[in-house]
């Protein structure tokens, strides 16, 4: 049997230059180990360091000493002591933070993020996972899949780690039993499928005894896969960012040693670049060509994602820190309202609406986060209603920034969609976030100048255009009232159009379902259509639940000042539910219908609606009359 460590040592002794050449060309793999205190995580890492000769004799001596003093392995070496660092936690016998360890094999250099498995330390695991290419999920073979296994797997998946190793540890304690290993693997596969983890590799091992760590264990002849280290050495790290056509570089620092040189420095966040490539500067939109890629060792012909470079452009263009240099024909999006997953990391809970500093790449902006659409239970992965996010909780929220930022969704490119939030008073990093998508696209769309303008359209109809935005619970009577209002306006000679669920869902929005993303898009399209129709001079009536303030605000922002009339059709839940004309509440209560507003999805009441009608005290006819009177009386429609 050829022992790889022995081989390496031989090479070092006999031909150091050959060894250095080998070491120089190693790639790097960063991984995170997740497991609870009892899963033997520290022992496994200690074993990896020990077996790859990363422990020196003096460390070993102090390890042996410590093992006898505070170790848990009797007279044997307690590998865990090798990696448990700070004095406080050494006394408590637990790891309390993220620690980074290093070891190398013949093929790779490894950086291990060691994070605790404690309930309250979601923060640490997300931190450690943010830079990891791979996650090792540790399981105690005696216990199988536990709540924390689910939690760790969910977090690793959330942060976008595509390579998962299920390390079924302590096989020595179950007599290296294949049946139990197979059962655990099968259980995990069901769970992984449910979570959306496409693939994982299960390895039976013992960190304490060294089985299947660096070489195949004789204790488990039934296991046909690779030992842990062989697997880590061989795995291909998916490389979306490097392979992408989309060149992205956030400008970090402008290099200006003299008047003749103007370079832009940054770490490439996606794609590659070479001299002569056509690029666009964002947000200005100006284009130029790459002149040189400058380094101290001479100009480079090409640079790829991950490299820190300084580039010069062929033209004099304005560009400073926070700007981006990107592929000219394939630029990222620019927007100021987003949906994002947020991991809250501070003792003080999130305050919806408060302005936090947001750092994304080299952009620093002010961002306010809305009340969460829902919080995610990291153990069961269920969506739960929440008014805020507390320490170590995760939620999906909408946020808006004070100026437009350049971004891509985190799923497409983590370097372009990952951000942190900073408390402006304490300066603490309070949250990490991952952008999903923009709620309102604001790319560089140039408006077509039109000779007949909106005033012209409205003047011909002799009316002032308006959007009457009806909002309220399902069954509150929105459609009925809106229909009556349109009739009355029509009778008054007004040019109107009623947008309701059916006429929109059957055509324009027939590609949309009822996920949150689709709901937001549904409302966005309706708002845009309403905007165009007001430009055409019409009075628009919309009748949709539109449960979230953020979307109604978005619609309002699209309209001209004074043209958006929010009408709250106020019906208490119990009354709407008692009516239950379409039988939907019944279905929602029985669980047949998910995400139903008022039942398991919140309805955010308007705070400053222009008109509120209370359907418990007035009939639909009275409500419609009230609205029309209000419009006329308020001078909303005196044209």
């Amino acid at each position: 049997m050829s022992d790889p460590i022995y081989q390496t040592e031989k090479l070092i002794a006999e031909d150091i230059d050959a060894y250095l050449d080998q070491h120089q060309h190693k790639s790097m793999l960063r991984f995170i180990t997740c497991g609870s205190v009892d899963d033997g995580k520290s022992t496994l890492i200690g074993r990896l360091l020990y077996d790859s000769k990363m422990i020196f004799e003096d460390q070993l001596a102090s390890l042996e000493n410590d093992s006898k003093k505070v170790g848990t392995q009797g007279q044997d070496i307690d590998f865990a002591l090798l990696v448990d660092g700070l004095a406080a936690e050494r006394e408590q016998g637990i790891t309390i933070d993220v620690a980074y360890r290093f070891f190398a094999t013949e093929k790779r250099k490894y950086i291990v993020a060691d994070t605790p498995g404690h309930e309250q330390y979601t923060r640490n695991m997300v931190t450690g996972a943010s830079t990891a290419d791979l996650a090792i999920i540790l399981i105690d073979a005696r216990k199988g899949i536990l709540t924390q296994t689910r939690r760790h797997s969910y977090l690793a998946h959330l942060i976008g780690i595509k390579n998962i190793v299920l390390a079924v540890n302590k096989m020595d304690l179950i007599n290296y039993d294949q049946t139990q290993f197979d059962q655990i693997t099968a259980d995990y596969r069901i769970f992984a499928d449910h979570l959306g983890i496409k693939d994982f590799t299960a390895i039976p091992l013992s960190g304490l005894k060294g089985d299947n760590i660096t070489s195949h264990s004789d204790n488990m002849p039934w296991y046909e896969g690779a030992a842990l280290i062989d697997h880590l050495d061989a795995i291909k790290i998916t490389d979306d960012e490097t392979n992408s056509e989309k060149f992205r570089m956030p400008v970090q620092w402008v290099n200006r040693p003299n008047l003749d040189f103007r370079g832009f420095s940054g770490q490439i966040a996606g794609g590659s670049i070479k001299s002569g490539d056509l690029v666009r500067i964002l947000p200005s939109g100006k284009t130029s060509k790459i002149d040189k890629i400058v380094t101290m060792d001479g100009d480079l012909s090409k640079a790829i994602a991950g490299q820190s470079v300084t580039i010069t452009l062929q033209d004099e263009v304005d560009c400073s820190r926070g700007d981006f240099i990107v592929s000219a024909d394939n630029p990222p999006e620019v927007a100021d309202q987003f949906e994002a997953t947020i991991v809250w990391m501070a003792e003080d809970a999130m305050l919806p609406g408060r302005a936090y500093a947001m750092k994304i790449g080299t952009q620093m902006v002010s961002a306010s986060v809305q009340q969460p659409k829902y919080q995610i239970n990291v153990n069961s992965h269920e969506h739960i209603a929440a008014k805020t996010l507390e320490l170590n909780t995760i939620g999906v929220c909408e946020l808006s920034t004070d100026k437009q930022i350049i971004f891509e969704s985190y799923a497409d490119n983590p370097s372009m969609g990952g951000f942190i939030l900073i408390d402006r008073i304490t300066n603490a990093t309070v949250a990490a976030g991952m952008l999903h998508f923009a709620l309102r696209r604001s790319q560089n769309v140039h408006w077509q100048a039109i000779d007949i303008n909106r005033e012209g359209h409205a003047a011909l109809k002799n009316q002032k255009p308006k959007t009457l935005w009806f909002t309220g619970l399902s069954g509150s009577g929105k459609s009925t009232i809106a229909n009556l209002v349109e009739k009355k306006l029509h009778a008054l000679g007004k040019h109107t159009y009623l947008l309701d669920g059916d006429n929109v869902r059957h055509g324009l929005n027939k590609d949309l379902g009822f996920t949150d993303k689709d709901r937001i898009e549904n409302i966005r399209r309706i708002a845009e259509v309403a905007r165009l129709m007001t430009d055409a001079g019409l009075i628009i009536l919309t009748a949709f639940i539109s449960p979230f303030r953020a979307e109604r605000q978005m619609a309002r922002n699209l309209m001209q000042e004074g043209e958006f009339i929010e009408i709250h059709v106020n019906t208490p839940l119990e009354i709407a539910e008692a009516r239950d004309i379409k039988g939907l509440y019944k279905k929602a209560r029985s669980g047949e219908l998910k995400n139903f507003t008022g039942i398991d999805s919140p309805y955010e009441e308007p705070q400053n609606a222009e008109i509120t009608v209370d359907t418990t005290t007035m009939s639909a006819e009275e409500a419609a009359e009230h609205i029309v009177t209000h419009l006329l009386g308020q001078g909303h429609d005196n044209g």
Partner: protein
Amino acid sequence: MGQLTHLQRLEAESIHILREVAAEAEKPVMLYSVGKDSAVMLHLAKKAFYPSPPPFPLLHVDTTWKFQEMYKLREKAAQDAGMELLVYQNPEAKEKGINPFDHGSLHTDMWKTEGLKQALDTYGFDTAFGGARRDEEKSRAKERVFSFRSANHRWDPKNQRPELWNLYNSRKSAGESIRVFPISNWTELDIWQYIHLENIEIVPLYLSEKRPTITRDGMLLMVDDERFPLKDGETPEMRSIRFRTLGCYPLTGAVESEAKTLPEVIQEMLLTTTSERQGRAIDHDQAASMEKKKQEGYF
């Protein structure tokens, strides 16, 4: 990023960190100790800002007890980089004649720990680069890249900011300062390999040569100048030695070696079984000594 080697990835990460500080800090400085880690850090700074010189000065917190060859390289390295070199010596330690022979750990406390605090306060630096690495010692494995210090320079291991992706939060209140470690993720082997590859100038003491030595308390010490008080029966003896780490010469143990080239040094390092900090007397006091020193403000 699979197309890059581990050294290229480490280099890119370090350069990113150096530039973030240059862009965001008000008054940064690079702590320069003339050792091999400082040499690599300085080299990375030159690369990060080329063709400009690094936009901050070098600061050496001097104890007056460094090896003569270190002082020589110090001046030259700063000049080559086109950077201003600031040298700070704690006036109180100077006045009291604090030295490693008579004052034990007080020597490190006053010259280094106190000296560093005084220097940062005197010049008003808000951010200081240091060449510490996570693989050096257990408590350093948990150190952040951006490490926050209170107004009195204390480090609180329980109150550090989470660091995600490559997003560093450098905001701070008045009086607070940040220590930034751009080579956190480099190992001793990476450092040596990079010095070799990039042909970085280092103090010749890292390579073996015949030098005057004595053995004391199990340590092999070099008699670097006439201030070394010899005890009865001690006569300097020429031995072929080199150093794995450099500090104050009376506190830095040498190893006997024939390694005269960098590859030979690396070869010896990989085949020996004594870890790097073993040569420094400072760590031997107690198990968690480094962590304690760090909380007090030692780098």
